């Protein structure tokens, strides 16, 4: 299989792009967990305006294209003095977008924590934040694991968006090489492999985690 020597010479550049993609994905994942928990906490809180704010955030992030969200953020950042930072805009946009989905995933798994479990904790005199951190959160996270891993894959597949604000992640790097060398097929093949090499194992991991959680639950019998 003959690869154009120009492409081979561009390999380090492409790998740098691949690493930046991974960095973006991880930053987005971190942001997703933070924003997701925040949105969930606000939704469960006592202040109605904050509850509504959280719901609006989730509806907006899920109802508008991430491309538009990225542009809005990219052009809004300079207004708060954070202009000229495409990487920040991209990571923030990814985190905010994914955070809405994370919040819904966690919310969907809240029922794992039965009312009885919470009552037992209240009867002991446990403060609310400890009930959340020691009783509810560990169980909710555990039940959400397959869906969260899936969300991670979706994050990875959303990172190419950063190329439209000239962040040199894998897709943009690929485009730059193509512009220089006119070897679309070979470069796109490498770029595709770059994504598949991460996405496919992670998807496989999600399936296996989902199965093992399901089997653990079944052997535990009725939800206690």
């Amino acid at each position: 299989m003959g690869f154009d020597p120009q492409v081979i010479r561009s390999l380090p550049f492409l790998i740098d792009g691949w690493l930046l993609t991974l960095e973006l994905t991880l930053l987005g994942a971190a942001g997703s967990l933070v924003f997701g928990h925040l949105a969930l906490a606000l939704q469960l809180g006592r202040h109605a305006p904050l509850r509504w704010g959280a719901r609006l955030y989730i509806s907006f992030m899920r109802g508008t294209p991430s491309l538009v969200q990225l542009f809005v953020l990219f052009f809004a950042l300079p207004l708060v003095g954070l202009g000229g930072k495409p990487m920040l805009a991209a990571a923030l946009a990814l985190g905010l977008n994914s955070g809405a989905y994370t919040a819904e995933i966690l919310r969907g798994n809240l029922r794992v924590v039965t009312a009885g479990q919470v009552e037992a904790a209240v009867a002991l005199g446990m403060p609310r934040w400890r009930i959340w951190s020691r009783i509810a959160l560990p169980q909710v996270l555990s039940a959400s694991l397959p869906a969260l891993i899936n969300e991670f894959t979706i994050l990875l597949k959303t990172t190419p968006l950063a190329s439209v604000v000239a962040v040199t992640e894998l897709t943009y790097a690929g485009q730059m090489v193509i512009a220089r060398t006119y070897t679309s097929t070979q470069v796109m093949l490498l770029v595709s492999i770059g994504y598949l090499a991460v996405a496919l194992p992670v998807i496989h991991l999600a399936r296996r985690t989902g199965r093992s959680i399901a089997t653990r639950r079944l052997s535990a019998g009725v939800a206690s």
Partner: protein
Amino acid sequence: MIETPKPVAMRAENVVKSFGSNRILDGVSLTVMRGEVVCVLGPSGSGKSTLLRCLNWLSPPDAGSVWIGDERIGMRGGGRQGPLPESEIRRQRSRIGMVFQSFNLWPHMTVLENVMEGLMSVKRMPRLAASDAAFEALRQVGLEARRGAYPASLSGGQQQRVGIARTLAMDPEVILFDEPTSALDPELVGEVLAVMRGLAARSTTMIVVTHEIGFAREVSDRAVFMDGGRIVEEGPPTQLFDNPSSDRLRQFLFRFNPTPSRS
């Protein structure tokens, strides 16, 4: 100042509780002395469980007062009005233990961790001390050997005993039992009642809502019969069960124990 234990462990005065338009508790008063075992019986809907949940403010009453020792629960006593802050109520709750019908163990923690959690979260005990205290509590219910197991691998009776251990570890002044054996298969009831008998023998103050008339008759110092949100009859178990004075209690006992009562 050394605190001498007060003779009255817990007290409810004219407790009223409604859910929507249903008045579940219609002015219930009950005094439980230190070291007493009081059993509360009655048909479903009589308000027994609701009364228990009012006692530890899990379900605050609409009117009336609840006292632990000489401290009023949930509301400011003395000259001041209004509810107590959440942190105060939590502290009061930690003096009261509760054992639930559906055990309510935390499935993601081991038996030992379940028993330790209250000590660390509420009493701020360091991990090692909590672990020792939890082990001791498990020993009292005979389950120290299963401390590394998860609740899912335990039988119902064992889970309930862990629930009791979780309460014991907190060293409460009074333990409330909300139909502790109602969710158990018949052959598992005995092991839980045995633990409860052991606690009674050690002068633990207990308020037990139960259908187990045999247990109530043998172990309780006083039995209380509730119906329609009120206490209908109250007294030593022999008096209540062998010589019921109210028709409703007679009907109730007949349903559970269809033998003619001695006249």
